[in-house]
């Protein structure tokens, strides 16, 4: 699994009544009885624990050295070895871990910023312009949405080896620019965020279509752009099969593939285990930070972009 899927759609009701109604609903009929309150919230806590505990385990495990990892209770603190573990991660193979992190940031960053711009431009064009073969072209976009990413990885590798592009950053960077689902979403965002009258007014005032896209359309679609970019960032960061297939040079690997190599070492050499665990923790920090910082955007993006 992985990649793809940032969905959006919504039922057949008028939009823009997010968040607030919840509040109102509480005051109107906020007496459900103590038992039901307990049941509902109890079940929510159980579900949330299931989601959180594995990540917490990672946090605790990364503070332990190999002996404590096997020796102490999972959620007890052993000798606090987090910084030693980080130092070991940093020292291994001449700091290759940070190279991997930088690669991931490069691949995911380019995919997010440039790939999403490409998608947003296309989606905007599908919504705002009339041109011949519009429907059939959009049909291709939808077919692209439905083809599983991993099914194209091997063919892409075969093609890349014909033109001699395997084991280069381009082998990873070019495919991540292609995000058909982003185009679909951008079309939805364009129709809900950018009023055609505004563009018409700009046209009357003498602005060309490119100018009005960058000056009006793009800023108005910014929450949608950030949502697409964020999910594309996560998708590329998660990408495993593509770089695994395309790249052999250890210096080019993204962190996902790099850590899986260490995991392979850890089978015969258990002293690698704390490094795998600590490296895993370090590698998810950028994503957690991005999600928490951009919460406002992805939530409003999922909400408002959620049109039919």
């Amino acid at each position, binding site marked *: 699994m992985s990649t793809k899927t940032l969905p959006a759609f919504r*039922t057949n009701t008028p939009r823009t009544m997010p968040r607030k109604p919840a509040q109102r609903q509480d005051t109107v009929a906020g007496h459900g009885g103590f038992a039901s309150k307990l049941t*509902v919230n109890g079940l929510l806590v159980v579900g949330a624990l299931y*989601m959180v505990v594995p990540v917490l385990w990672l946090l605790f495990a990364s503070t332990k050295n190999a002996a404590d990892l096997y020796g102490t209770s999972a959620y007890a603190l052993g000798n606090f070895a987090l910084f030693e573990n980080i130092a070991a991660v940093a020292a291994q193979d001449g700091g290759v871990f940070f190279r991997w992190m930088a690669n991931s940031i490069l691949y995911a960053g380019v995919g997010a910023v440039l790939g999403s711009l490409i998608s947003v431009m*296309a989606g905007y064009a599908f919504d705002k312009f009339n041109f011949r073969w519009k429907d059939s072209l959009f049909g291709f976009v939808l077919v692209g949405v439905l083809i599983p990413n991993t099914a194209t990885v*091997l063919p892409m590798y075969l093609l890349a080896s014909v033109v001699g592009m395997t084991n280069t950053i381009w082998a990873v960077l070019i495919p991540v620019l292609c995000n058909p689902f982003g185009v679909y979403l951008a079309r939805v965002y364009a129709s809900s965020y950018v009023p055609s009258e505004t563009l018409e007014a700009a046209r009357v005032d003498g602005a060309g279509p490119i100018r009005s896209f960058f000056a009006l359309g793009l800023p108005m679609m910014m929450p949608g752009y950030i949502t697409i970019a964020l999910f594309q960032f996560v998708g590329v960061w998660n990408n*495993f099969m593509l770089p695994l297939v395309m790249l052999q040079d250890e210096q080019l690997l993204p962190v*996902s593939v790099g850590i899986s190599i260490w995991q392979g070492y850890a089978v015969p050499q258990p002293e690698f285990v704390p490094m795998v665990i600590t490296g895993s923790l370090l590698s998810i920090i950028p994503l957690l930070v991005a999600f928490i910082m951009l919460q406002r955007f992805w939530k409003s993006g999922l909400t408002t972009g959620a049109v039919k």
Partner: protein
Amino acid sequence: MATQAPTAVPQPAAPQRRRSTASGTGGRTAALFLVPFFAVFAIAMVAPVIYAIVLSFYAQQKSGLGFGEAKTSFVGFENYLQVLESESFVTGIARLGLYCAIYIPCMVGGAVVFALLLDATVARARKLFQLLVFLPHAVPGVIAALIWAYLYTPGISPVVQALQGGGIQVNFLDAHMVLPAIVNIGVWEWTGYNVIILFTALQAVPREILEAARVDGAGEIRAALSIKFPLILPALSVIMLFTIIGTLQLFTEPSIIAKATPSITSTWVPNMWAYDAAFIRHNLNQAAAASIIIAALAAFLSLVVTRFSSRMNKS
């Protein structure tokens, strides 16, 4: 234009895709906006698929990476037949079917229940719960599989330890348990994400309707089942679509878990089979045929899902 994405599905991939340059108002400007996308689309999707189709009709007498052109011969559907007759490939498909049969009800069912609970009037701290259930989505598949691999490993895992304390001996990594164990990883990764989507859909259910139901004496559970649930069906069908496409991609999690247990073979699911064909058995033509079969299966299944859900939404 409800659910126009899913309904307008595959016109078969006739390789006739050139953007419109002239004609139509704004044709030329539209082209400017569309060229970047369709250029990468052509490079990253169309060309590889076409090349894979071509490759899948040939076979190499002497297999080898890059230098086998000498004895390439056209073999028609021979590669497809070999793939489909391969016991390990067929087993992989069956295993994937079993995976779906467990995974989809668990994950989608779990997401629906959690979203309905979150939308219940008595629920508290909704924002916090949303953030917490969404947390696993910020964890890459590789890392999620790694975490769970350790949580399944006796000696490290608090889960195994706790179960042993309760007198239950489970080896999550043995041949019988490893499939459910991998289902669990998928459930963990994707439930929260879909909760957010369903919760968003639930928030859009007009409060007047719920109010009216309450006045008519419908309890909270009744309202959830007979009013809220039908209204989020369109959202559910989209989730089903993406879930099915997603499960066909299954590769990362079993590949990672495979390093922790011999129960997972190198051809465990179709994608791993194709990878193995390309890089271990060095049969690129077969790998290409397998990839095409997987893509065709995905297209077929999404067609079925969209047909089914559009019929359901009509009735």
